[in-house]
């Protein structure tokens, strides 16, 4: 490569285009703006004319639902932040003040609390969708990796957010999780002290948790934008796992996908409202309504429900350092899946063996979730060990072995053929909705 594009010593003369005004498909004022700032045409190309596979199921509405969750969380969080005080002395009372004295503060706070839970419900279904239909395969590996980064950020943000009300579970959850860093050989203790900004979880820690909770929330938003940009380059996968070929296979984003996604979002919101309005504390822990007390340890320290599977993995290993490594790698291993699953067939619809293992994996997830909520003794330790073993076996052994040995079912050549086969009963699809 020569130094093309740079002004160089040789006297070759090339035309330059510093003025890129023009090219808008719009006329009038909109066209005038779009010629100078091409975001309107971008919106048109990416959200109106954007071609999407015709056969998407409601599992593909979860992306939009997650976006709604994130926006609602940021907006409600902004309002809460105006009333919340991040100090060990005032945090609990300031949250209660929001619940009692701030106009509709209870509504905002319950919405924020429950949206966090529903964010995870949706994201777990979103990840399952990717797993089942092979959305992590060529050319979507990078999108999948970005998704895993988002998931890590979500977990960090949710953990930090849970500490803010400074109840008993906030305090002890924070103590347990930050203490995990002490498992790092040699420098562990220093890291923990550095994280706390003190010799115990206290005022300094709460203050930085609050700042980081804000920072990471917007960090998620940023990475989500990358996730969406990548989506618009590689396009949506679909239940058949076959790439669209012509317009018989696709619909335009508006009004088809928009109307469908809007319906899915409303159903999601309806379920959300029922929980948030009639059982707002159902997904929380009663101990978090007891103000933090460093002198009294709760009988069972449990994280929020959405961390339970990973908490079970952590506790299933008797050694602290190995436990932490297992917990982190149980999520990170998802990132290797595009290179561990070697099958060329994306959708599990055509993979009879792999499909069974995915269902087992889902069961394993719930088993671990159940064990994570139980005290780490007796049968629960054994069950979480079985669960942990299967978790890693699934990714590291089953995925490559099955993908190399499995004989996939005959596949149609296109999405419209897939739809025809489905009508003729040649394909058995998995349907939740």
């Amino acid at each position, binding site marked *: 490569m020569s130094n093309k594009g740079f002004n160089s010593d040789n006297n070759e003369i090339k035309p330059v285009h510093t003025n890129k005004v023009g090219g808008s498909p719009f006329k009038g004022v909109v066209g005038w703006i779009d010629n100078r700032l091409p975001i309107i045409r971008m919106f048109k190309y990416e959200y109106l004319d954007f071609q999407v596979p*015709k056969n998407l199921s409601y599992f593909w509405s979860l992306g939009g639902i997650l976006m709604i969750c994130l926006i609602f969380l940021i907006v409600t969080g902004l309002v809460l932040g105006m009333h919340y005080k991040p100090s060990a002395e005032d945090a609990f*009372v300031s949250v*209660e003040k929001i*619940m*009692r004295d701030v106009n509709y503060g*209870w*509504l905002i706070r*319950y919405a924020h609390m429950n949206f966090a839970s529903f964010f995870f419900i949706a994201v777990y279904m979103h990840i399952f969708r990717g797993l089942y239909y092979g959305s992590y395969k060529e050319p979507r590996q990078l999108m999948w990796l970005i998704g895993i980064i988002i998931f890590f950020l979500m977990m960090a943000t949710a953990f930090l957010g849970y500490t803010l009300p400074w109840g008993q579970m906030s305090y002890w959850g924070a103590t347990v999780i930050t203490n995990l860093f002490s498992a790092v050989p040699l420098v562990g203790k220093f890291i923990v002290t550095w994280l706390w900004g003190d010799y115990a979880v206290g005022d300094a820690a709460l203050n930085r948790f609050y700042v980081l909770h804000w920072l990471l929330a917007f960090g998620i938003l940023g990475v989500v934008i990358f996730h969406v940009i990548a989506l618009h380059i590689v396009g949506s996968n679909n239940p058949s796992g076959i790439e669209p070929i012509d317009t*018989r296979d696709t*619909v335009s984003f508006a*009004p*088809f996908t928009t*109307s*469908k996604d*809007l*319906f899915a979002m*409303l*159903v999601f*919101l*309806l379920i959300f*409202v*029922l929980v*948030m*309005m*009639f059982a*707002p*504390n159902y997904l929380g822990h*009663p*101990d978090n*309504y*007891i103000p933090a007390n460093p002198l009294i340890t709760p*009988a069972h320290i449990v994280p929020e429900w959405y961390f339970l599977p990973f908490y079970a993995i952590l506790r299933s290993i008797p050694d602290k350092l190995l436990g932490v490594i297992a917990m982190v790698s149980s999520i990170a291993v998802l990132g290797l899946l595009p290179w561990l699953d070697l099958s060329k067939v994306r959708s599990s619809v055509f993979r009879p063996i792999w*499909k*069974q293992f995915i*269902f*087992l994996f889902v*069961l394993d997830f719930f*088993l671990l979730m*159940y064990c994570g909520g139980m005290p780490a003794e*007796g*049968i629960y330790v054994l*069950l979480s060990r079985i669960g942990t073993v299967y978790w890693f076996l699934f990714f590291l052994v089953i995925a490559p072995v099955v993908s190399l040995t499995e004989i996939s079912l005959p596949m149609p050549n296109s999405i*419209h053929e897939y*739809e*025809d086969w489905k009508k003729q009963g040649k394909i*058995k699809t998995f349907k939740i909705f």
Partner: protein
Amino acid sequence: MKSSLKLFLFFILIISYSLTVFSSEKEVKLLKPHWSFDGIFGKFDRASLQRGYQVYAEVCASCHSMKLLSYRNLAEEGGPEFTEEEVKALASKIEVLDGPNDSGDMFKRAGKPSDKFSMPFANEKAARSANGGAYPPDMSVLIKARAGGADYVYSVLLGYDKTPKDIKLEDGVYYNKYMPGNKIKMPKPLNKDSVKYSDDTEATEEQMAKDVVTFLTWAAEPHLEARNRIGFKTTIYLLILTVLVYLVKQKVWLRIKPKV
């Protein structure tokens, strides 16, 4: 599909079996009275809230604080809804240390509706020393801070029983059927006619327990009625909107269905 179903059933069987075998904790069934605030249309019973406040003020308040509540809350919509005059009268019964005044001295005055509920003890140490080392918990959000909520607190209030022969308790520790570990440092708080209700309600133990738990539930969740009301309206609104959007979606998708 079939074999995965079998595996699934096998899995469930193993788990449920192992749980029945290994679960050693025996569940204590809580008392579950009918609460007027339960359910989607739940509302507080005003008279019960007012009686409940009386039980709190005359019985519980001697040991338990309610830091997060002010007397003005008692007049607010959705609560006991005492009249403003009644609240003024209730607040004025207490003495508040205020100040400093212009000459720099602290002074005592009668309570006002804007004052917080009076504290039974000056600090935690004083509370512990007066209660045999136990700290009577603040009751502002007590109902939300206990698994089982209103049912649990109600059960504990009525759960005092003769100590079974095989259990030995130290002095100042009492037997309670519903308390985890069956030990409680609070002596039986409610006895027949502990309070004298101004309406003609009979002050039985059950009645007082029910009233005070209703009051505590309101204290923990003062906007419960508004929440139910708004929740119901939002649900109806969303239901209608969802149906309409579904119809729109069906209509839109009709445009391409024939081509397939």
